[in-house]
């Protein structure tokens, strides 16, 4: 009974902390966007607008929900939940600092990938179940985008598994005497770009392109259900950043600098997320055919090349 209770309490704390982090990620993102675009950003709620995210959350929770008439009742309800839950569960296995937060299993990398992959289901189902055409297009785009970027995504991870000879995230970190970004820079590039597409952020935010599809898959969602989608999306962004840190940047290893490992881990994640924001402010959205071409004609060959080079080195050395 006691282990169950500790796991339960740890999970609740993890979810609350993640939600808080998401709230302030959004605030910092808006401040950063404001700074880049030479305006103030949120500055009304509290000093420097630091309560803006809290105010937004309260607004979303209290808001009246509007339902489309042609919705599919079960799927419409379940879709935002899938998106949020599938983004939260993998964090129980991510080794923040030296060991994972809640559980440690041998095949943790596979588990994380499997659960994180379900977020697409949330988006696709949200698009289909709304019973209206713009969300349907959003879901359609999301499915196509996921399918074409999942291949280079997994291939670049395969190269890491080959070099580390393990599926455990903890052991992958331990095996990085030099961060894998140096021996596998091509793999890192592929993983980073495919991860960017996987989180559906600019320049790959086709599923929710506001100027083309109103709001994409979440057009018909309002109030708390919209908040679930939003939360899931940002948690997914943190998840992809922490995977980048674990697989390519050496996790909590500080190498020469004497700092506690969880702090190093958090700093690295913050840096990766900052780069995501930076890309968002700098680049326009790609066209859909450009997106497909980019994945099939550039990322997939590059990831195959990376895999072959890594295997040759593995055999020779």
């Amino acid at each position, binding site marked *: 009974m006691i282990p169950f209770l500790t796991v339960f309490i740890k999970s609740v704390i993890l979810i609350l902390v993640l939600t808080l982090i998401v709230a302030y990620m959004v605030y910092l993102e808006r401040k950063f966007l404001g700074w880049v675009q030479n305006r103030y950003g949120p500055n009304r709620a509290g000093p420097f607008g630091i309560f803006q995210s809290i105010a937004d959350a309260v607004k979303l929770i209290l808001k009246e929900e509007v339902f489309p008439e*042609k919705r*599919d009742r079960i*799927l419409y309800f379940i879709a935002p939940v899938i998106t949020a839950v599938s983004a939260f569960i993998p964090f129980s296995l991510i080794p923040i600092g030296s060991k994972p937060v809640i559980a440690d*299993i*041998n*095949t943790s990398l*596979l*588990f994380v*990938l*499997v659960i994180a*992959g*379900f977020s*697409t*289901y949330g988006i*696709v*189902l949200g*698009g*289909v179940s709304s*019973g209206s055409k713009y969300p*349907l297009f959003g*879901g*359609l785009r999301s*499915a*196509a985008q*996921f*399918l074409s970027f*999942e291949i280079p995504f*997994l291939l670049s991870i395969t190269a890491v*598994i080959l070099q580390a*000879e*393990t*599926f455990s995230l903890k052991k992958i970190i331990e095996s990085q005497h030099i961060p894998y970004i140096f021996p596998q820079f091509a793999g890192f590039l592929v993983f980073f770009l495919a991860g960017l597409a996987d989180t559906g952020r600019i320049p790959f935010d086709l599923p929710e392109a506001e100027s083309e599809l109103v709001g994409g898959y979440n057009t018909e969602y309002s109030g708390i259900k919209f908040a679930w989608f939003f939360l899931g999306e940002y948690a997914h962004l943190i998840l992809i950043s922490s995977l980048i840190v674990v697989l390519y940047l050496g996790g909590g290893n500080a190498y020469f600098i004497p700092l506690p490992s969880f702090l190093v881990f958090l700093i690295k994640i913050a840096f990766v997320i900052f780069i995501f924001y930076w890309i968002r402010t700098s680049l326009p959205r790609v066209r859909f055919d450009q997106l497909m071409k980019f994945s099939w004609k550039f990322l997939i060959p590059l990831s195959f090349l990376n895999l072959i080079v890594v295997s040759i080195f593995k055999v020779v050395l």
Partner: protein
Amino acid sequence: MINPVLYGIFTFLLFVFSILTIAHRDLMKASLSLAVVLFVTAFFYIAFKFEFLGWTQILLYVGGIVVLILFVIMLAREYVGKPLESGFRRTWLGGLVSALIFIFLLWVILSTEFPEIQNFSTEPVKDLPNLLLATHYVLPFEVLSLLLLAALFGGIVIARRE
């Protein structure tokens, strides 16, 4: 080993969603039921300690193939949210073929002696490539898949020309 209550629940789920996969009138929901079936099957693999197989099954089939099926259904938009119309004309023939396949599979399962695996390594990643290349079937299999890929591209090229 495996918790009997969980085993019962998952067997029940497997049964219900297998029926739904073939019987549901909404194509979208039928394919989602297929996803649930594949997921539950993977649970059995994992419960019997074949973790790698289980996770790979979910990753490839639930995460890849079923998303592809959903994509195709959404692409043909007339099927989204509308029930499929099907007559009873071919029910008898279909039932006959299914019954024959069922009897055949039952015969195969009952007449096979399943050997119990005594020991298997829990850290198999290092040996995996060697093991795969050591058996005779992998290379032909890979060549075959390459051929299929080439055929696929050929099909696309021919279809695009018109």
